[in-house]
């Protein structure tokens, strides 16, 4: 009958991989989470990035508009002067943070004081905008003062240059974060749910009566997940590169490095999924467990905000999470174009996590 060729576990494993992949593509929630959601975030952040800095400043009614100071302020593109509101309206807008400040210019007839009195009102409601506006206006006033007394000898001279090196765009921060998010959710949710489902619906039980070894069933399922995750990661990177100018410092080489990082991280995240599928008894027990693993990493791992923007005590937690290291390594690889050796500390952190996770998983994972 079939005794001529020795049994190939690999062939059996690949049959499982093929069946599993087909299943994954037909599962809408997996596709949504792993691909659609990250792409959505990238689109959102991609469009936000197109804006330029601007601050609205109210110009108090009856302000003097004839001075040199006023001309300078008006010509600065960052400052948008609002002239069509009444004083009480401006005050309200200032308190609500819609205006960065209120500017008034009054010509003074008192000869003991400067000819033009400028008052800038700001509010805590728009601290950032107010600070920017204040600095710009102060600068404008200084320029006006200097222009009025040209013979004054300056102690310090300054000029500004625009650096033309590759600039870190918002997407260069966000896309690696989204990749990490996609890999994390795919790895954890994908693995946890699938094994639970298969265990409960006795799909895998039938496999046990065939010559395939249990380990190859797991490998087959894992491989299909890896293939799917790498495919969706590739798509995300290509989309970011073509549509939003995501920086791939050394092109294809950088892309490959990112794929390797994705693979290592996915390996760790899938292990976490295995642990959950071993712990959870029913399908409804999976989301809380999975979210406990995914959400803290999502928030603290530097996906949306840099880790440095957190208080020091939170950063300690951040530095213990695997996603943090993945995000860091991804950003450096993509933007700085470094090779994998340069991010070896990040990879090492991921691998240590991998060992811990798989030790736990082999203990907890149950077949039935």
């Amino acid at each position, binding site marked *: *009958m*079939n005794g001529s*060729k020795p*049994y*190939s576990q690999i*062939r*059996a494993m*690949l*049959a*499982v991989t*093929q*069946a*599993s992949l*087909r*299943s994954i593509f*037909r*599962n809408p929630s997996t596709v949504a989470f792993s691909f659609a959601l990250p792409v959505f975030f990238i689109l959102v952040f991609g469009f936000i990035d197109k804006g330029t800095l601007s601050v609205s400043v109210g110009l108090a009614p009856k302000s003097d508009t004839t001075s040199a100071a006023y001309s300078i302020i008006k010509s600065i593109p960052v400052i948008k002067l609002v002239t069509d509101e009444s004083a009480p309206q401006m005050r309200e807008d200032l308190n609500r943070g819609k205006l960065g400040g209120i500017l008034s210019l009054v010509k003074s007839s008192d000869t003991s004081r400067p000819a033009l009195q400028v008052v800038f009102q700001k509010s805590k409601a728009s601290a950032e905008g107010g600070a920017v506006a204040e600095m710009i206006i102060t600068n404008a006033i200084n320029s006006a003062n200097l222009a009025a007394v040209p013979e004054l000898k300056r102690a310090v001279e300054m000029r500004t240059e625009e650096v033309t090196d590759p600039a870190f765009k918002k997407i260069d921060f966000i896309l690696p974060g989204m990749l990490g998010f996609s890999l994390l959710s795919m790895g954890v949710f994908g693995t946890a749910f699938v094994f639970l489902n*298969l265990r409960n*619906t*006795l*799909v895998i*039980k*039938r*496999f*046990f*009566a*065939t*010559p*395939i070894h249990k380990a190859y069933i797991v490998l087959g399922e894992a491989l299909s997940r890896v293939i799917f995750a790498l495919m969706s990661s590739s798509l995300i990177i290509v989309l970011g590169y073509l549509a939003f100018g995501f920086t791939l410092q050394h092109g294809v080489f950088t892309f490959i490095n990112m794929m390797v990082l994705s693979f290592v991280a996915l390996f760790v995240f899938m292990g976490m999924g295995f642990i959950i599928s071993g712990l959870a008894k029913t399908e409804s027990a999976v989301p809380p467990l999975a979210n406990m693993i995914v959400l803290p990493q999502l928030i603290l791992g530097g996906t949306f905000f840099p880790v440095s923007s957190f208080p020091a005590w939170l950063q300690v937690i951040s530095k213990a999470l695997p996603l943090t290291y993945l995000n860091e390594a991804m950003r450096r690889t993509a933007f700085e174009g470094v090779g994998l050796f340069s991010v070896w500390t990040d990879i090492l952190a991921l691998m240590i996590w991998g060992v811990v996770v798989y030790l736990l998983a082999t203990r907890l994972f149950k077949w039935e």
Partner: protein
Amino acid sequence: MKSQSPVIISVKNLLKQYEDFTAVKGISFEVYEGEIFGLLGPNGAGKTTTLEILETLRDKSGGEVTIDGLNLDKDQNGIKKIIGVQLQAAGYYPSLKLFELLDLFGGLYNVDIDKMKMLAKVGLEDKAKNKYKDLSGGQKQRFSLCTTLINNPRVIFLDEPTTGLDPQSRRNLWDLIRKIRDNGTTVVITTHYMDEAEELCDRVAVMEAGEFIAMDTPGNLIDKLVAGGFKRKKEVKQANLEDVFLDLTGREWRDQ
């Protein structure tokens, strides 16, 4: 007759012990090549446990099992290659189409199969491109039966193959099982349905609380009962209600 055929399954003192109770209490039996052998008994009797042990899905606590000359302890993988298994409540990747599932099992058994021919054996050729979850109960059972044959097995084990099916499907599944046996495959079946056992099985073994309480051909068992003075309460007619039903509604496959 059938007892001239060689023994294909040999079970000696099979024991399955759990912490708090013993499911199978040292049973012994033989199955002859080419017969349809039935395992009957109430729920909890130990039929499914026994079957699962023979199917290599469950470990035994003691005893010896030989299938087609292969010892369960020494060559479990060899046994897996020559048996087919239909589980009582099994599933398949639900969103996969039938021919994709056949690809899967072909790979699992390392065999190249003619998929359409396999589906034709169970009358499902026109459902090849349908997803498993879209099949009716009867169709799912037929597909399940189909997957037991992929590796051209020597023995197939069927756990309650017609539970939940309508009369047409049951009859037609019986014909299918007989055809499989006529092709040279030995069939071991567990069932709750006595009419099924009486119709299909060459020999039956009745299990109760982990032990056999009877093992013989259905005919012999009935004869023994009648010889002991048993008389049926109702008068036995030449036909029964099922015959009426089938006569009225026809005997072809009924697919919803």
